[in-house]
């Protein structure tokens, strides 16, 4: 529960934003309230990011219950959905991100490992 509480709403959580912008990974996690799935997804995402992208990522958590109009932008249907806004191309990953391998694949991080 803890991490979600910190990041509920349209609050940006930036980690080490001092790096150059072109290397920055901008990730957006769409959730609908603090459901177990949402919390799992956030925890998983955080973990993966810490491992793979330490210091060069931001995570935006968007709660659609509070901002339903934001769902259109990235054609959100399934929740939770993770959007990789940067680097382009935009990638879309759905589910609670428990399958780390697939998440890495979706984020195009698998090859770099």
């Amino acid at each position, binding site marked *: 529960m803890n991490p979600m509480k910190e990041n509920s709403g349209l609050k940006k959580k930036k980690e080490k934003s001092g790096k150059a912008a072109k290397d920055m990974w901008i990730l957006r996690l769409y959730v609908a309230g603090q459901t177990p799935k949402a919390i*799992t997804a956030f925890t998983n995402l955080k973990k993966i990011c810490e491992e793979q992208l330490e210091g060069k990522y931001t995570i935006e958590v968007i709660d*659609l219950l509070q901002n339903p109009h934001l769902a259109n932008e990235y054609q959100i*249907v399934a*929740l939770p959905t993770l959007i990789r806004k940067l680097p382009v191309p935009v990638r879309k*990953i*759905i589910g*609670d991100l428990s399958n780390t391998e*697939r998440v890495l694949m979706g984020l195009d991080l698998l090859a770099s490992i």
Partner: protein
Amino acid sequence: MKESEKKLTNNKLIKAPTGILGFDEITDGGLPAGRPTLVCGGAGCGKTLFGMEFLVRGATQFNEPGVFMSFEETNDELIKNVSSLGFDLEDLVKNKKMVLEHVHIERSEIEETGEYDLEGLFIRLGYAIDSIGAKRVVLDTIESLFAGLPNQLILRAELRRLFRWLKEKGVTAIITGERGDETLTRQGLEEYVSDCVIMLDHRVTEQNSTRRLRVVKYRGSIHGTNEYPFLINEDGFSILPVTSLGLKHTVSNERISSGIPALDKMLEGKGYYRGSTVLISGTAGIGKTSTAAHFAEAACKRGERVLYFCFEESPAQLIRNMLSIGIDLAPWVQSGLLQFQATGPTFYGLEMHLAVTHKAVNDFKPKVVILDPINTFIVGDKEIEVKTMLMRIVDFLKMNQITALITSLTTHGSPLEHTNASLSSLIDTWLMLRDIELNGERNRGMYILKSRGMANSNQIREFVLTNHGVELREVYVGASGVLTGSARIAQEALENAEVLTRKQDIEQKKREIERKRKALEAQIISLYANFDSEEAEAMKMIQTEQDTIKRLELDKVEMAESRKAKIENKQTNNKRNYKKTIL
């Protein structure tokens, strides 16, 4: 699953009128309000349009805003596509009467990484509904999700939840689904949406395509169960609920002229009943169209509107041809009383014809409709379908108190009383035109095969096309059969001669009697004369006798006076003597 949702209330199901022409009639009021309805069918059968019209009519006619959630077409595409039906979606969106929501899922862009749900869809839909207070929702076609999302288990569970959620929201929803091989929809959506299922169909038979609609199921409501043809034209959907209406039409006692005085005479001298169905059947070139044209002209003269469907001739050709028998239809066309609808029978499918007829009649509102001829519909082995179609047309026309005149071509060799479409039972008045071949001539004969509700003539009349229209003549039935044409004329001459001789006979008899009477009268006069002379003679004799008696008595008195005798005494003595002689 659905049992829990089933609300068995005693209250009648509330319905949301669709505003779609004809649909509310077959469903007794529209779609179930506050419940989802499944509209399924193959590609290009009009699912999207059905949903769209439901929303547009809801927004414009029933003040129920709606959300159109499209999984296939983008908003721009939608707006363009339905503008051809006269729907201005942009305007509706601007006035917050409608929300267009395009949901797009690209499988290649999506990586599945564990548990998820479709709450995003719910939120989007919910947000769209709440933003305009929508009462109606269309999801078109939600099955696209199956292509975009790999996990079917989740999807199915979520769809079930979605439909329940829609019900809880109280919106009237249409969910469209592509038709499957064995199921109504490819993904078996009917399993989730079980309140009302409507099937649209687009079939091609004999190169003619026809759209049909059927209410497969409708919980808690009566509905027509047939397949109803429908068309999509510039006014949107139009469904024909004709067959559900049954034989409930009102009847009229009014009689209208057939346009041929002699034919009217055969029909009790009054003509057809208004609102009845008249069939004219006969072989080729017998004058069916001419009879129909007479009727059309008569109706126009009465100031009634006539809708003439010609399936074989073009209106111009028909007008020209009718002019040759002295019927001028052109002025009526110009004055707007007569309208021709000329379409080749193979131009559309049967149902389309029906629909077009329906629409034309509704638009023009005629008193008389002529279908000339109906045979052309029968291409291939579609007799039953043709009959159903004609039944629907007849039914529809009767409901509207429109007098219908149908012509039907009888092919040579087939029984005359048999119309190709076995129409007999539908027909109120059936005129039969047949050719009579005799003495190297082919002449036309007409008789009334049946005419419901009137004492019609049972006579065969000779049917003659003259330059001033159709004429019916008496025919002669002799030992050799019916006499027509020159045989009839010969017979007429013969009869005329006979009549003349008879007349002469009578004259002669009359003269003879007159002569006899005169002779008799002369005789009587001479007898009277004889009698008079005899009488005079007799009178003279009587007079003489009486004179004699008088003189004798006078003489006696004179004698007695001279003798001075007592006449009385003498008289008594005489009596005594007389008595003695007797004793």
